[in-house]
């Protein structure tokens, strides 16, 4: 594998993101914003805690879906961007495996999660580990009773959809699912995410 994670993180973490004269940040085929992680955690916690027990899974599924759509569209925008072509593309030898490794380096550089791909079985399975991620900050309110890194779950499924979806972008979303098997928020040393075909 020719992907140099350290170099990608070092360079991609410097990408300047600030609102233009209209207060908007167009980029990667989407509009971007840069908000405190506490806000996203704050709403996710509130909605999951507020709904009755029998609807918790439905609420979690909607949070997962928000991340999956974000990951699918923004992820595709990233791997077709000028920044990607300049920094990451020259390192890619094996497609799409190296693209996935590179995508998680960018994922790390942008502060979503300090994460990497541990295992890929082409077209079938991917295992991702995250050693630090903002969604685990809910631990400051006490240990969670179940894994709740919905953003990493959704984005991980989306990245596999882009890499090995039954149809190419933009029609391949939903090919894969993701199960979070470990979580810092439930007392594990790291988060682990198993992506398999839906």
């Amino acid at each position, binding site marked *: 594998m020719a992907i140099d994670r350290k170099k990608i993180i070092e360079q991609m973490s410097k990408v300047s993101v600030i609102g233009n004269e209209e*207060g908007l940040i167009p980029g990667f085929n989407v509009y971007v914003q840069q908000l405190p992680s506490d806000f996203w955690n704050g709403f996710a916690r509130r909605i999951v805690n507020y709904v009755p027990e029998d609807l918790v899974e439905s609420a979690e599924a909607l949070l997962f879906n928000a991340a999956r759509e*974000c990951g699918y569209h923004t992820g595709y925008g990233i791997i077709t961007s000028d920044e990607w072509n300049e920094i990451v593309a020259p390192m890619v030898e094996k497609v799409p495996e190296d693209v996935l490794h590179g995508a998680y380096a960018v994922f790390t550089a942008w502060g979503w999660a300090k994460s990497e791909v541990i295992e890929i079985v082409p077209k079938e399975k991917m295992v991702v580990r995250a050693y630090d991620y903002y969604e685990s900050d809910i631990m400051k309110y006490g240990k969670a009773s179940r894994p709740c890194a919905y953003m990493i779950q959704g984005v991980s499924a989306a990245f596999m959809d882009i890499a090995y979806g039954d149809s190419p972008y933009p029609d391949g979303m939903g090919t894969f699912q993701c199960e979070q098997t470990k979580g810092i928020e439930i007392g594990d040393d790291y988060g682990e995410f198993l992506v398999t075909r839906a």
Partner: protein
Amino acid sequence: MTVEKKIEFEIDHKFDPITNRHYMNGFCTVLHCHHYATLYTQLADDAEEFKGVQLLKEAAEDTFYEVLEDYYQKNGIEAIEDKVTIAEQYWQAVGMGLIRFTGIGKYACTAVMEYSHLDEGWLKKWGSRDKPVNFFTCGFVAAVAALANGKSVRSFKVKEPKGLVCGDEVSAFKAVLT
């Protein structure tokens, strides 16, 4: 003739190479796209039975109250006009759009947006609709109204009578003392 320099929001951005997290003025921040923001908005709107919109507005109010209050304290900002200017520039800097506070009073505050991340994003993703969608900014306006008046969170209730997503020329916000 003296020329008064308009106060400017300053960004101190740091990337922690150990945790790989980004910090803006000491607060952990994360980049997300309009798909994420609009789907959170839709989730809140659909969860009518569970006060989804209220929960989203409150999450925004709590977060942005803390961020702005911290900035005001660290930079010695006390004048109402300066507090409002900083808030407007903050919203612009983080990519949420162009907001202008048109009235700051003890009992009510008003603001308008000519450009809005949520509205532009919603229009791009789903097209127009008949109800405003900018619950993030409602929470933000509630925070600014409270801070400008030296009050705590939940002091103001905010409604959005006009929305860019509805075809109006601006999104309009009105905060009223509870």
